[in-house]
């Protein structure tokens, strides 16, 4: 009575086949990531030391540490965030809360923002060179490089913030408006507190992207080598990503462990920041209020 009919057997076979197929795809995806990390730790691990993190490069960048590059990357990320976060979140609030959602202009702007996120970083680099270095006369400096990074990350900050704002149920807004709240009161009291998780996650993910980019900073503020640390935003700086490029391709006789060490540091920073973002998101999700 419960014997499988041929059609059932066939369905089971197909089910098994697809299960296997998707499983293989997952392995194909995971293996390179694991191999990269294992390789980096194996080859770059020996280079890691207190001195590696906190001293200057020596002997024509074939020995010594990466301190100025590490500090430079932190400079670039922090300054670019200071520019992109307030601008991006404000723009997202306008697009999500004030602009007429059905208006053609709003749609065009939304579409443009999403497309802007897909512009190659080298194009942003050239834009930064023209706009910040030459036109605004910031010169090649941390400021120009950070603003270029900010322009590059801005669309993604806007889209991530917009999406988290839109995820707050419309009923909350209606309830507030009907109580006699202004739009800003509604945003301040109800919408923003509930959208904060998503906005922060979006921002942290952008930090890791900004930290890893080479092209946008190459023409606008980062240099191969500096014998001193930057003192302000109008100075040039070294940066980890560019340093890695330099010692892997431009400098002869670099011991193998050095570029791997830099790569490990860069990937480690990104991994730590991303996991922090994910953990933070999980923590706030646990406190999710509706």
């Amino acid at each position, binding site marked *: 009575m419960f014997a499988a009919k041929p059609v059932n057997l066939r369905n089971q076979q197909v089910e098994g086949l697809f299960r296997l197929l998707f499983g293989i795809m997952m392995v194909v995806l995971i293996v390179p990531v694991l191999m990269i990390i294992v390789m980096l730790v194996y080859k770059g691990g020996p280079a890691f030391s207190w001195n590696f993190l906190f001293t200057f490069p020596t002997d024509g960048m074939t020995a010594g540490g990466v301190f100025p590059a590490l500090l430079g990357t932190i400079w670039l990320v922090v300054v670019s965030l200071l520019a992109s976060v307030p601008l991006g979140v404000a723009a997202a609030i306008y697009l999500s809360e004030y602009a007429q959602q*059905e208006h053609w202009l709003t749609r065009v702007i939304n579409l443009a923002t999403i497309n802007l996120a897909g512009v190659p970083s080298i194009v942003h680099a050239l834009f930064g060179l023209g706009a910040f270095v030459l036109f605004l006369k910031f010169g090649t400096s941390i400021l120009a490089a950070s603003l270029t990074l900010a322009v590059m990350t801005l669309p993604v900050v806007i889209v991530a913030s917009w999406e988290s704002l839109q995820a707050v149920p419309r009923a909350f807004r209606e309830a*507030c408006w*009907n109580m*006699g709240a*202004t739009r800003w009161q509604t945003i301040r009291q*109800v919408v923003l507190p509930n959208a904060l998780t998503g906005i922060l996650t979006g921002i942290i993910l952008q930090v890791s992207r900004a930290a890893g980019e080479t092209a946008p900073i190459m023409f606008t503020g980062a240099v191969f080598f500096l014998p001193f640390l930057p003192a302000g935003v109008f100075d040039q700086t070294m940066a980890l990503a560019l340093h890695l490029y330099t010692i892997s391709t431009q400098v002869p006789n670099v011991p193998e462990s050095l570029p791997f060490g830099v790569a490990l540091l860069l990937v480690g920073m990104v991994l730590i920041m991303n996991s922090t973002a994910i953990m933070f998101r999980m923590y706030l999700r646990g406190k999710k209020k*509706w």
Partner: protein
Amino acid sequence: MVNFALQAKEDQHPDGSAAPGSDAPVQLAVNKLEIRYGGMVALSGVSLDIRQNEIFGIIGPANSGKTSFLNAINRMDMMRSNMTVTGDIHFNGVDIRQWRNVYALRRQIGVVFPLPVGLPMTIYDNVALAPRLSGKNLSRQALDDLVERCLRRAALWDEVKDRLNSLGSLLSGGQQQRLTIARALSQEPKMLMLDEFSIAVDPVTTMRIEDVLKELRQEMTIILVTNLVQQAQRLAHRTAFFLNGECVEIGETEALFSGQVKDSRTQDYIEGKFG
């Protein structure tokens, strides 16, 4: 609990006070109201007066323009780019478009939605939100008193008095709906508009809320949009029947339900032949 239903059948208004007569002062005067969304007409040609301290029922199937009617009164057309309202609405004798401060108008009119909206903040903050938004700087004590009073009037106080600091959005559906009513009351409104409040609420809670409304109407005017014909019969002094964006009929509830209707569609709807 069964008593609620029986009681309601025996006596429409257990509070004992008489319904406001036709000479009662008008709370809300609507004249030739038309509401459109883009090119689509949601409601047209509605003229009616709602008297102070009456419970005014609005019945009708979905897409009749009932909710749009409430939205127009609260000037929600300002928040929606495609909603246009023509005709006049006078609240307390003043054209609602003449109110310079639309936020003050909205504070005088409390709204309860079909699905309970417990805002994701504590129970206390839910009720204290409106007074805080209005810029009245109430002392902690005054605010505490107001919160307690509103929760008591919404018949929720006994259930939540020990956990005012827990999240309002985690209450059950019926509790959240009473929380919504408490929140609407915290505005100290002159008029309360309920939009199918019982849609997501169990029958027992529905009866409790109906009792609350009978009490409240002594202090304020109530517009009760409802999908339950019997609910209008139990509560409303007068009832309007909306159908497909048209106000088909307005009459004393008792008269409508005893067959004195001018339009056969009203009769059919009340008898459940459609809708």
